[in-house]
């Protein structure tokens, strides 16, 4: 049950993000002009890779309906008399309504449609300038006097596999690893005399912690590696770092998550309480890690909260080692941060384990081998 669950989730996420970039997203057109030029704009819009014109609607109210019912992510509205106005030089206005409630899809189709109309406009501009006796080359220069060479460093195709999938997998792993650590520690901590028994068997807190957590460390490392193999081999996500450093980061991340999970198990009153507390702390951590909404744009509280979650430094290190290929020196401070989390969580865990192990055994009649709160 333990290994298959994250693997099934990885597989599902991989299937979801497999296309890498959204393509042929549905948009609707309200062409009130119905001219040769307006039809040309619609054809150009449809030809763009990210957009597909699925409907031609007669009015804006129908278009609004299409947006609300999610049949289209954007509306391209061409006003009546567009061609006529254009020929008279009266600057007709073409409007793109994009649904920004769906930030990703709405943004992509909105940008695509605006670019299409701008391209069309530039084409008209070129012809007008040529008509003024300005040569084609000169006219082209005139249309964009300050061209911008936009270059996305590191993720040239702005691929969602590199950007999102690569960050979501460790997030799911963090929850999974913390949860297994909670369960393994709760077994002793929340059963009668479990900790004293652990004391008898392991004799020292260090050995107890290692004995409890190490098996899951191997499981976690194996699953994380497997996910990364899929990511880098199968999806060809770029890896520009040092495999050893990458692996070391992953290993520290797993240990830090385990220590955090086990610590929660020792603080909480019972197993389900511990899982619940773990869920509250760990489940929202994707937002705090700053992949979707960057950390520097957050409130101070959110930045501090992000600092104590292992996912935050680990995702930064992942970006450094995979997409950015940053030289090691730039990652050292983040590695120290992750290591500090590991040290702090482990020390607290060690102290808590020693304290709870030292409890004198309580004599209870019906000592059960397993925690059986579920049957109470």
């Amino acid at each position, binding site marked *: 049950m333990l290994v298959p*669950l994250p693997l099934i*989730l990885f597989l*599902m*996420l991989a*299937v*979801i993000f*497999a296309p890498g970039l*959204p393509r042929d997203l*549905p948009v609707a057109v309200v062409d009130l002009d119905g001219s040769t030029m307006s039809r040309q704009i619609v054809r150009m819009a449809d030809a763009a890779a990210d957009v597909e014109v699925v409907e031609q609607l007669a009015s804006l109210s129908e278009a609004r*309906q299409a947006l*609300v*019912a*999610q049949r289209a992510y954007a509306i391209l509205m061409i006003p009546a008399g567009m061609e006529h106005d254009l020929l008279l*030089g009266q600057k*007709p*206005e*073409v*409007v793109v309504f*994009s649904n*920004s*409630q*769906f*930030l990703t899809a709405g*943004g992509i189709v*909105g940008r695509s449609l*605006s670019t299409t*109309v701008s391209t069309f*406009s530039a084409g008209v*501009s070129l012809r*007008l300038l040529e008509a003024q006796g300005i040569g084609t080359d000169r006219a082209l220069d*005139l*249309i964009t*006097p*300050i*061209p*911008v*060479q*936009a270059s*996305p*460093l*590191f*993720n040239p195709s*702005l691929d969602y596999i590199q*950007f999102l999938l690569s960050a979501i997998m460790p997030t*799911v792993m963090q929850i*999974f690893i913390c*949860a297994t650590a909670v369960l393994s520690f709760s077994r002793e901590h929340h059963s009668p005399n479990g900790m004293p028994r652990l004391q008898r068997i392991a004799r020292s807190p260090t050995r107890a912690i290692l004995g409890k957590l190490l098996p899951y460390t191997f499981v976690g490392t194996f699953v994380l590696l497997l996910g990364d193999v899929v990511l880098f081999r199968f999806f060809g996500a770029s890896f520009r770092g040092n495999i050893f450093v990458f692996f070391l980061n992953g290993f520290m991340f797993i240990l830090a998550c385990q220590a955090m999970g086990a610590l929660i198990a020792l603080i909480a009153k*019972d*197993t*389900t*309480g511990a899982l619940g*507390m773990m869920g509250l702390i760990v489940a929202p951590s994707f*937002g705090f890690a700053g992949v*979707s*909404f960057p950390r520097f*744009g957050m*409130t101070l509280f*959110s930045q501090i909260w992000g600092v104590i979650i292992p996912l935050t430094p680990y995702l930064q290190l992942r970006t450094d080692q995979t*997409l950015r290929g940053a030289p090691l020196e730039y990652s050292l401070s983040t590695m120290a941060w992750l290591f500090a989390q590991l040290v702090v969580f482990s020390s607290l865990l060690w102290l808590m384990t020693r304290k709870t192990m030292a409890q004198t055994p309580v004599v209870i009649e019906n000592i059960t081998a397993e925690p059986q709160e*579920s049957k109470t």
Partner: protein
Amino acid sequence: MIKLRHFLAEVFGVIRTLLADDSAKSTMIVGILIYSVLYPQPYVGEVLRDVPVVVIDQDKSTASRTLVREMDVTDLVDVTMSAPDMETARDAFYRRDVYGIVVIPAGFEADILASRPAPVAAYSDGSYLLIYSNVMRAVATVAGTMGAQVNYARLTAQGIDDSTARTMLSPVTVTNVSVFNPQGGYASYVIPAAFVLILQQTLLMGIGLLHAGRKPPAGRRLWATIAAYFGLYMIWVAFTQMLIPYLYSIPRTGDLVTLFLIAVPFICACIAMGFAIAMAIPWREGVVFFLVVIGMPLFFLSGISWPVEMIPDHLRTISLLVPSSTAISAFVAVDQMGATAQDVAKAIQTQIVLVVVYSALAVALSRLPHNRR
């Protein structure tokens, strides 16, 4: 009348049982309250502003300085540094001191004056899409505005009259209007959706905590149990879909009756599914473990952050088995986009089918030997 009073007493009995169970209480009540404070925190800024960028100005002219100043003035980026060369800029970039690099090559002003194209280059981090889009929008907007001014001056200098010059340079105006979330706010986008999932997950967990591995309630007690959870979660629907948007100043346009029409079948589907899971996994910890781990991946099946059109058909079909897969976008459509019941009819139907399917499954599973003790 007396029957009703007995029934209500039974419902309050169920609520008392819920409050007496620490885990269930902290999941179904305290947890949601904590989430409502904690979860929105990273996004309360709504819009990303002032992304720090470094400029490499190799021209050092009036024109290049104007470009830098205009960029700094925008909300999108903040020019925090100027670097003599790419080496220095890259260093700042790797240190995460800046997230974008703008290069103005030598000869920028001379090119403009000589009516040659005067390109600028912008680099940003494609591993953070929101940051990338801010940097590129800032550079493109400023370069576009400056370019238009330059062009206008050139054409009018050639004796072309004012309005003709304007028309020639941009014969068609493009206006991009963002609807439903006008400022493109991140909180407005993610919070209404996420809380639907939070409701589903806590309800499923709570039912698991209270009923997994135990003898399922029967007769009047069963109906009282369902009524109690339903009542509690309708309060949470109002809390998360109306009060939370209000507290975080998220615009909402939803109509109450329509919200009710989607919320009722959704909560019922979650209750039925909760019992089915509780009957299937007779181990409280197991139920919670399973639900905590699958929570986040479920969000990506909802179509909010990744378009449903991109999800392969069979996965989409399987995902319909989870209420949130269709309910999240339906809630968002109703609350944020003012959808009518007709617009979300398909989602409502799906929820009703799920109520039937999971009720039948829960009843069937309750006959398993481990649930009959």
